[in-house]
């Protein structure tokens, strides 16, 4: 079981690294926002697997907060970039 969990964690870390590649490469701010949104979702998955790995269901509270933060920041970024188009 631990092997499966470690494998899953490794997979999500790989996904996170690929998101980071897109954040660094751009080319537009919107690509970065999409990548960061995806990274937030991946981190939620990462914490969820960590909760199983450490047998700590308390970590699931962090998931709720992260999910909320991810959504709010995505919407805020989208609005902010739109505002930039119309000063």
């Amino acid at each position, binding site marked *: *079981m631990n092997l*499966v*969990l470690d*494998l*899953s964690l490794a*997979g*999500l870390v*790989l*996904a*996170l*690294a*690929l*998101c980071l*590649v*897109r954040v660094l*490469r751009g080319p*537009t*701010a*919107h*690509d970065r*926002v*999409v*990548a960061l*949104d*995806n990274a937030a*979702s*991946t981190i*939620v*998955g990462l914490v*969820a*697997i960590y*909760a*199983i790995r450490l047998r700590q*269901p308390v970590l*699931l*509270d962090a*998931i*709720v907060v992260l*999910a*909320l933060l991810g*959504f709010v920041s*995505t*919407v805020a*970024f*989208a*609005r902010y*970039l*739109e505002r*930039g*188009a*119309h000063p």
Partner: protein
Amino acid sequence: MNLVRDVVVAALLLGGVFFNVVAAVGLVRLPDAYMRMHATSKTTTLGLAGVLLAVLVHFGSYDVSTKVLLVILFYFLTAPVGAHMIARSAYICGVDWCPATTRYDLERATIVCATRGGEESARVHQQAIELARERRGELIFLHVVDTTALRGLGHDRAQALLSEMRALAAAILSTAAAQAAALHTIATSLGCARSQPDYDRNITSLYWRPPA
């Protein structure tokens, strides 16, 4: 029982992680922001739901199940909203799609900008250019030459004055076109001579007045 549970958890986990990795690969490989958005929707639906359902099956207690189902429901509600907002913002900011895209379902606008030249008109041009960029529409600059004043004059004088007016119109329109070209927008120029009263009404209906 424990073994069955572990197998289910492992299957859900690996499935979820698989979709997460596929989405991340798509995020790097696909050519434009809109297609990348298509890839990342897999993370929040299949990927995250798989991982969180694995957590639910593993712990199985009421408080964990409630939280996990709440998060899944939350993601299913907010992911489309967030994706829509980014896509809308990208479209408004003029983020280009890759040239291979063939289908375009949004309305193309035609913007007609009447111009008289001068500093005040430059501001109007600016707004017309921005509108055309935002809507990805066609931009037409229109300059109307009023020839009713030439009526009482002799033929030769009227012709000479008319050619002067045409030259002025060409200068004004080329200034407007240059302003558009500086912002990477292609504009069509249109001059128009008006002399008949019936014609006037048709022309004035084309005027576009930006909000002050």
